[in-house]
């Protein structure tokens, strides 16, 4: 325990340097801006800005990206409350009571409780993260290649099972990503695979090329089909303050939201969206008088806002300890870390303690920064909300081009990103989720390498994957997570049938 605190102190010594403090501030502001801007989602926003971290040291880069991640969540809740438009899926629930509060002239308290709830949840969850991370890492250090292969399979299947309406389409998207990851020179034999004689493909298709194409470019192409012409009117904010009565009413909702959110965030198959829905549901059930929910009950803002922030921190547990992303955003961060030459997972904890502890310390800073910056800046965010969407789309594409070309200086990459953009547009248009494909590209190379190493150990027998207890458990969990949408549906049906 004392070791954890001395490491955390070390982390603060990394995060509190003037440069890193500046990046945390810049990240929080840019993140909130992305969250507030109409027409660009948090994942695309972070993807096109990854090149900014190019050439930075890994600790600063991760501090910037984490602060941006936090900022997007905060910005998303601001739009939920003020214009009834959730910035992302995890703040959908916030619109229920948040927008109602704003319409009743209580936008100030709603925004304040969202910020304070996020702060409380972030702070408590980071303690949870530290307590969880160390034991998981010591377990993960015993993993061999067979366990790693099964672990990545679990990561892929959990993201796939929750993405989109059709499991078959989500799996096709995952296979597409894995197929793209096999392009280029095979690391263990030096054989060029699927390069079609194009020298630029020998290094493989870059993760950023795929991420910017499938997330950002396709998002813009889909959005210009029908551009909302109605002006988005924000509810007037008034003074952002919180009466003691409101704070006291929300305190337990925040704590419960934090606990629910953190645990759900740690689970690989679930994320901030489910966490926020569950936290809202729990508050409604526990309330003595639930009739106010949906009509502007402050607990209906406090609980989901705490839960989605706690889940965002919980999501960092599998990412930092096992190298497993549980959501699109953490998949993007994993790709960014790998571009910086850092492989998240138990070895990162040993090899790059400055990144690991610096990141954890910077989460505290990011939280504090958002609390200090955002409440006074609400007026500015409201103005940004009013920017018409059609102005943003060409500019997003202009930044995407920097994102792809600025890193590699390759026209081939740029054209590939355009191609992935068109493919992503088709996929989104026809219900194929794009996140599993991007995750497949990120994890594919490692997955193949660990499978091959595992089979070297077993002399070519696939049985090694089920003979080792941990890998067997991971395989079963993968199967369960793929079946989970069906299991949940079956359970609901069973529940709703009359009982005798």
């Amino acid at each position: 325990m004392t070791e954890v605190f001395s490491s955390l102190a070390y982390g603060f010594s990394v995060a509190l340097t003037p440069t890193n403090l500046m990046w945390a501030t810049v990240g929080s502001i840019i993140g909130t801006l992305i969250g507030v801007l109409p027409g660009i989602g948090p994942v695309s926003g972070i993807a096109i800005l990854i090149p900014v971290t190019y050439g930075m040291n890994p600790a600063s880069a991760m501090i910037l990206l984490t602060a941006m991640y936090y900022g997007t969540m905060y910005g998303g809740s601001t739009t939920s409350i003020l214009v009834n438009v959730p910035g992302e899926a995890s703040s959908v629930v916030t619109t229920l009571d948040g927008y109602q509060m704003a319409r009743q002239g209580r936008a100030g308290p709603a925004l304040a409780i969202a910020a304070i709830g996020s702060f409380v949840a972030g702070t408590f969850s980071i303690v949870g993260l530290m307590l969880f991370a160390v034991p998981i890492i010591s377990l993960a250090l015993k993993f061999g290649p067979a366990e790693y292969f099964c672990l990545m399979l679990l990561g892929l299947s959990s993201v796939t099972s929750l993405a989109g309406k059709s499991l078959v389409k989500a799996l096709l998207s995952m296979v597409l990503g894995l197929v793209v990851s096999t392009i280029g020179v095979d690391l263990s034999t030096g054989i060029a695979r699927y390069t079609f004689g194009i020298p630029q493909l020998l290094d493989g298709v870059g993760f950023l090329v795929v991420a910017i194409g499938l997330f950002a470019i396709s998002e813009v192409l889909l959005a210009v089909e029908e551009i909302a012409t109605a002006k988005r009117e924000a509810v007037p904010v008034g003074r952002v303050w919180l009466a003691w009565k409101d704070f006291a009413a929300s305190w337990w909702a925040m704590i419960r939201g934090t606990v629910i959110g953190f645990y759900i965030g740690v689970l690989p198959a679930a994320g901030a969206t489910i966490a926020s829905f569950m936290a809202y549901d729990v508050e409604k059930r526990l309330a003595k008088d639930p009739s106010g929910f949906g009509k502007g009950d402050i607990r209906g803002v406090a609980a989901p806002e705490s839960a989605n922030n706690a889940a965002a921190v919980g999501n960092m547990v599998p990412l930092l300890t096992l190298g497993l992303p549980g959501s699109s955003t953490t998949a993007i961060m994993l790709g960014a870390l790998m571009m910086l030459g850092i492989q998240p997972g138990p070895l990162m904890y040993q090899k790059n303690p400055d990144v690991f502890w610096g990141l954890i310390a910077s989460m505290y800073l990011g939280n504090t920064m958002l609390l200090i910056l955002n409440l006074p800046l609400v007026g500015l965010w409201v103005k940004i909300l009013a920017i018409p969407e059609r102005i943003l789309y060409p500019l997003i594409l202009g930044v995407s081009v920097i994102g792809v070309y600025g890193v590699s200086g390759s026209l081939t990459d740029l054209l590939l990103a355009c191609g992935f953009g068109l493919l992503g547009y088709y996929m989104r248009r026809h219900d194929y989720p794009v996140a599993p494909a991007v995750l497949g590209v990120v994890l594919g190379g490692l997955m193949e390498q660990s499978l091959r190493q595992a089979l070297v150990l077993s002399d070519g027998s696939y049985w090694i994957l089920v003979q080792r207890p941990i890998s067997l458990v991971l395989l079963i969990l993968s199967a369960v997570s793929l079946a989970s949408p069906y299991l949940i549906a079956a359970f609901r049906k069973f529940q709703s049938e009359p009982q005798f």
Partner: protein
Amino acid sequence: MGQRSHDSLAAILVAAACIAYLWGAQGFQSPLVADPLGPSAFPTILGWSGLLLAAVQIILAWTGRSSPEESPGSIRGYLKPLVLFALLVVYALVLEPAGYVLATFAFVVISFLMLGEPLWRGGLIAAGFSTGFYYLFVKILKINLPAGMLFRGW
């Protein structure tokens, strides 16, 4: 074309791509004895998984259990994204000869016109954006972007 025929057509294309992919995997011969799987095993697994999924998708589409019917979208709906995509490709191709500032300015102004932004305001925004971002990324963040003919030595 309804969602069902869309799904079948896509599945057939996916299956064809998987067959080509599997055929390509045949050609990778490993010189190493110590690597029992070799470079072709993982692609082979992926190729067969893709074929299997494509088959399932066709069956689901034919038995009417594919994802619910959605509005297929008119040709007009597809027009704007496709024009914007074509503009983007042209933008990419002229980026190196024209330089980031000029190419971006032209791309943003033309897309603004297509999306219905008045010329004077669009032109101002495009000029500010292209020069501002060039300055930010090249001079401050030290990321390489093509300068083009006009701004060489800038």
